[in-house]
């Protein structure tokens, strides 16, 4: 019996080590490519160890005219402001629906759940946000359409409020004359850090990783996020390759070099990699809260 368990354990370790290596390998190729000299890349392609080491790509990124620092700023702004607004608007909708004194709760819940079932689709959404709201080419286009609030998060937060905050606590605060806003701010929010952290985390990742809103609503390069900048570079390369097979060298020269592109991707993924060890445990908790929805 002991031996059998050990056999399973060893097999499990081996499989997991293989899996881990498979996860890490692409990142190593990316980082190595960003540190390789441009000529060496053309000679040998990308490899897992720089055949000729060079920091030129990172020097290019840090130079002001690459536009990357600006895109970085846009990404950070969108992530921080978007997440904050997202938490506020979600909590403001979830709290009243968690209160038993609120009438017509079934109706309001239906209004929310229905948005999770039926979608108008991309084209009508685009029309509403551009023709009615005129959000195109503003920073808000990266924050508001589609992402600011979703039914799932509202349900998650409402369930948490209902199940973990004692009704007596809210009742007694009301007796003491606290306003609803005061109750939300001073009682409900401080007691709800787990769900706020979970949703905040999911929203931050969503905002940092988003490229779709930028692609649809942003045409001004100064409002590009890191993801959109990377996307644009890749598209320009594809465009030049398919449309000017020969003699495209001059046009290609204006684009960042192969290693610089890889370096931009490295710094685009860096914040997630650096923050991951710290938020990893909340992520696992968050998945479980999400899975066991009320």
């Amino acid at each position: 019996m002991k031996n059998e368990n050990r056999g399973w354990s060893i097999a499990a370790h081996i499989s997991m080590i293989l899996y881990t290596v498979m996860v890490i390998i692409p990142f190593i190729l990316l980082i190595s490519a960003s540190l390789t000299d441009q000529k060496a890349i053309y000679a040998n392609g990308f490899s897992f160890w720089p055949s000729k080491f060079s920091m030129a790509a990172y020097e290019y990124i840090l130079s002001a005219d690459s536009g990357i620092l600006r895109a970085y700023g846009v990404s950070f702004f969108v992530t921080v402001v978007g997440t904050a607004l997202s938490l506020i608007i979600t909590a403001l909708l979830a709290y009243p629906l968690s209160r038993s004194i609120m009438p017509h709760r079934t109706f309001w819940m239906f209004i929310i759940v229905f948005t999770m079932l039926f979608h108008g689709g991309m084209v009508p959404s685009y029309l509403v946000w551009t023709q009615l709201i005129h959000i195109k080419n503003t920073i808000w286009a990266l924050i508001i359409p589609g992402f600011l609030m979703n039914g799932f998060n509202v349900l998650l937060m409402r369930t948490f409020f209902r199940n973990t905050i004692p009704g007596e606590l809210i009742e007694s605060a009301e007796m003491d004359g606290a306003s609803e806003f005061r109750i939300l701010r001073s009682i409900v929010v401080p007691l709800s850090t787990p769900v706020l952290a979970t949703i905040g985390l999911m929203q931050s990742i969503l905002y940092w990783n988003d490229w779709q809103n930028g692609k649809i609503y942003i045409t001004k390069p100064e409002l590009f996020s890191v993801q959109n900048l990377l996307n644009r570079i890749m598209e320009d390369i594809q465009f030049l390759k398919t449309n000017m097979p020969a003699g495209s060298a001059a046009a290609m020269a204006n684009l960042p070099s192969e290693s610089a592109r890889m370096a931009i991707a490295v710094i685009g993924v860096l914040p997630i990699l650096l923050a991951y060890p710290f938020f990893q445990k909340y992520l696992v908790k968050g998945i479980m809260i999400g899975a066991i929805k009320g």
Partner: protein
Amino acid sequence: MEHTVSASIGSTQPKKKKKIDFKRLWPLYLMMTPGILYLIINNYLPMAGIFIAFKQINFSKGFFKSDWVGFKNFEFLFATNDVYIITRNTILYNLFFLVVGTILALACAILLNEIRNIIAMRFYQAVIALPNLISWVIISYLVFAFLGAETGFVNNSILPALGIDDWIMWYMEPKYWPFILSMVHFWKSVGFSSIIYFATIVGIDQSYYEAARLDGATRWQQITRITIPIMMPIIIMLTLLSIGRIFYTDFGLFYQVTNNSGALFNTTATIDTYVFNGLLGIGDIGMSTAAGVYQSVVGFILIILFNYLVRVIDKDQALF
């Protein structure tokens, strides 16, 4: 808790006729206003906007003033081969991802559970969940580092090692992509989805296993006779809920990872990419809008249907 409170209030004051007490409730309505407004603009107006699928979209006249054409856009769409290709791709990819993805995630969770060293287990779990947090744009760069024609690792290092001298133009050859996209999808999602299964396994009562061990059951028997049967309800629920969403694809996978290469249309176009390309002016906007409505309507029916099935089996797991 709530029950006791309402019961005590109910006993002290006689129940009044239900009338909305605005004096007390206005702050709550005020709180809800931004959220409800957002749902109206972001969700309900676009639902109403489906009418444009019945118009001949004319950019110079503007969307709202374009002429009505009835079902013409749908007729055009269903007259093409495109609608067959995008529907086939959407459904086949989703089914394959669902079946193989579930098996892989489950296997991964069972293996994680065999690891007794907590630190090692946590480390593996953290690493394998990581790809799910990487954006599709970055993943498209990772894939490009392997598959790029002139500089990619595969063409420069792997193929020569295998004795193949010709480069493969990966982004021009549709036949490889079902395999590539599946690899990328599983790379991104399996570790993450195994977390739910793992948590369920950890929660299984250990006395089942102790009893089985006393009866001389092997580890394999314990897995197939105890773990998997106990997991079955959650596997079925998650599967049914995913089938309900079979008309929607993980858009970034099919758009970014393929670099939206037109040459790959046959094996990589899905309903989502078709609509998106139409919106951005690469395809036909009228047909794309019709395809979007086709997706919304069929998708809605499927979600309702499969959610109903889930509800029949276990009410608590259903979405509504």
